[in-house]
């Protein structure tokens, strides 16, 4: 079966006065029908520009300079890059819709919420005016706005952040798109609200079969919602695969390090987090060779000159690295060990995990 979305060697560049920023530099990935795919990476890695490219909404002076974005699972996929303005208008919002990080800036503050949801439908011709009108309340109910019928007449500022994000999701889903792109939908929200929104997205995916691309820098959010993950670094995909494989058996040193640099709720206080030294690269002047090499503890000579290809490293798992973790753990065990942070088992022996004050601390009062 053909995938719903197939991005092929997409390059989106920004031509600035002092050079070219290769925000997205040759990425290839696909999303199957009804699938949830996470795109993770740190700030500036090109996640948003990837999704904006799919929507053909790249801001000036950015431009898609290469590649194809094939959409449609019905044997006759269309290339989004080549669509006419007419076609793209129809494509946005009805085939694919997008929700953004900040729900306040995406809603019109002077229009009533119910009206805005209806507008989202009447801009397309999937539903008649009558139908659109009738769908508003059920949609708001579906995204679990309490008292939906009464709240259609409210203005966005009368809603809380989480409710505004729900309205955005309702608008995104109003035309029953087959793909929903959510760009950091929960970053601006609190954990308890984040949990509600993630639960909502999970249910919508299950009930309506809408495929979801979830963009985030939070690996835990990906673990909670996505079946597959794409890890981006400096405009490139550095690792891709099923969520379980990536988390259990990461092959790219960046993914591997990132997973060990995060404090985890399921691990009690431990000695030290792994740090990824250095800074994310400056995208107008990226390093030669492997883009991660200035920060990579496993690098070999080859990494400095030649950029590795995105190669298959296991069933359905791909990584862009000359060394790969499976080899690094064998050939450079001391580096791997130095970086390895033991995660004490949860609830095993509470008294032992929490033996504070740490007697090894300088200045600690010995009991």
């Amino acid at each position, binding site marked *: 079966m053909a995938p719903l979305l197939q991005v092929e060697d997409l390059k989106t560049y920004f031509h600035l006065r002092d050079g070219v920023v290769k925000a997205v530099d040759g990425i290839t990935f696909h999303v199957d029908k009804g699938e949830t795919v996470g795109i993770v990476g740190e700030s500036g890695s090109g996640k948003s520009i990837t999704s904006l490219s799919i929507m053909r909404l790249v801001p000036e002076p950015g431009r898609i300079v290469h590649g194809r974005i094939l959409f449609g699972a019905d044997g006759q996929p269309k290339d989004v890059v080549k669509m006419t303005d007419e076609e793209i208008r129809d494509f946005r919002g009805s085939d694919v819709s997008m929700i953004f990080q900040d729900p306040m800036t995406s809603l019109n503050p002077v229009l009533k919420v119910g009206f805005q949801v209806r507008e989202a439908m009447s801009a397309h011709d999937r539903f008649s005016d009558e139908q659109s009108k009738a769908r508003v309340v059920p949609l708001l109910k579906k995204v679990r706005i309490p008292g939906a019928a009464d709240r259609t007449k409210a203005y966005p500022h009368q809603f809380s952040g989480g409710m505004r994000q729900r309205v955005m999701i309702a608008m995104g889903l109003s035309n029953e798109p087959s793909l929903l792109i959510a760009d950091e939908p929960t970053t601006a929200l609190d954990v308890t609200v984040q949990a509600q929104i993630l639960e909502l997205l999970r249910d919508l995916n299950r009930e309506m079969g809408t495929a979801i691309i979830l963009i985030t820098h939070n690996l835990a959010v990906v673990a909670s919602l996505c079946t597959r993950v794409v890890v981006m670094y400096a405009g490139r995909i550095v690792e891709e695969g099923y969520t379980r494989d990536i988390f259990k058996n990461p092959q790219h040193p960046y993914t591997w390090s990132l997973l060990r640099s995060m404090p985890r709720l399921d691990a009690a206080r431990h000695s030290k987090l792994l740090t990824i030294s*250095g*800074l994310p690269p400056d995208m107008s002047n990226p390093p030669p060779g492997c883009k991660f090499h*200035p920060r990579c503890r496993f690098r070999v000579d080859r990494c400095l000159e030649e950029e590795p290809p995105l190669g298959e490293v296991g069933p359905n798992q791909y990584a862009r690295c000359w060394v790969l973790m499976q080899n690094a753990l064998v050939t450079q065990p001391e580096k791997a060990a130095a970086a390895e942070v033991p995660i004490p088992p949860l609830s095993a022996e509470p008294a032992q995990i929490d033996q504070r004050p740490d007697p090894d601390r300088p200045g600690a009062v010995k009991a």
Partner: protein
Amino acid sequence: MATAPSDYVFQDEFTADSTYETGEAVSLWKDAWRRLTSNYFALFGLAVIVLLLLVAIVSQFWTPYPTWKQGIGPTYGGPSAAHPFGLDQVGRDILSRLMGGAAIALAVGLGTALLSSIIGIALGLLAGFYRGWVDTVISLLINVWYGIPDLLVVMLFVVIINSRELKWIIVAISITAWLNMARLVRGQTLALREREFVEAARSIGTRDVGLLTRHILPNALGPIIVQATYLIPAAILFEAFLSFLGLGAPPPEPSWGAMCAEGYKSLQLAAHVTLVPAFALAITLIALNAFGDGLRDALDPRMRR
């Protein structure tokens, strides 16, 4: 511009290779200068200002003829090789007087801008920083002052001081001109005092004076400079207006305004006596305003690209 390679190495911790790390380049001022110099209208303004400054300086040491000397040639004499801008109603050389007038204009412009900025900045800082009753009093003063016509203030001042020396003219104009600066600085201060770095400065024990001079003022400098550059042409125009009314610098000071006023009576007979200083005044004002606009755009962070 490479950023810090962290020499803070944890025990057996790997350190990154920092060759390719870069920070944001250009500073605000450098960036502003670049934008200013790509604005031709502002550059024209700057060129005129530099020329004016040179002429004003030269006029203090040398003019073709003494600015006050009458009967150098025929009264109302037209332009000639010896007197490129002609002669006025009492036979003084207009070029010489124009040069002397440049010095007066600049002295009034810069002096007023400086003095009224000092008053405005001081009151604005106090009102914005201390708020409460200090702000109430200063804001009331500003609003009342706005209601009183500037001309009235200056006339009263000149009468009370009973002198029309240039320095008193500058003081007189300054006490009418600080209002906008005070408002601007008050607003800036109100906003800046809530900024986190000011709070941080407070937390490290910075005294109020330090907060005002090291943290608030330097960050309000951009708009202050822009406002001050607008004060210069306004003051020059006001002085010309006063001189035109006979309230400005006393004769035989070659104030451009006075020159216009004197030639005005014989406009039909010898237009050049009025037109030459009027033209000089106009060019100067246009140049100063162009420069001020350029500066404003250059320092406006929204114009950053």
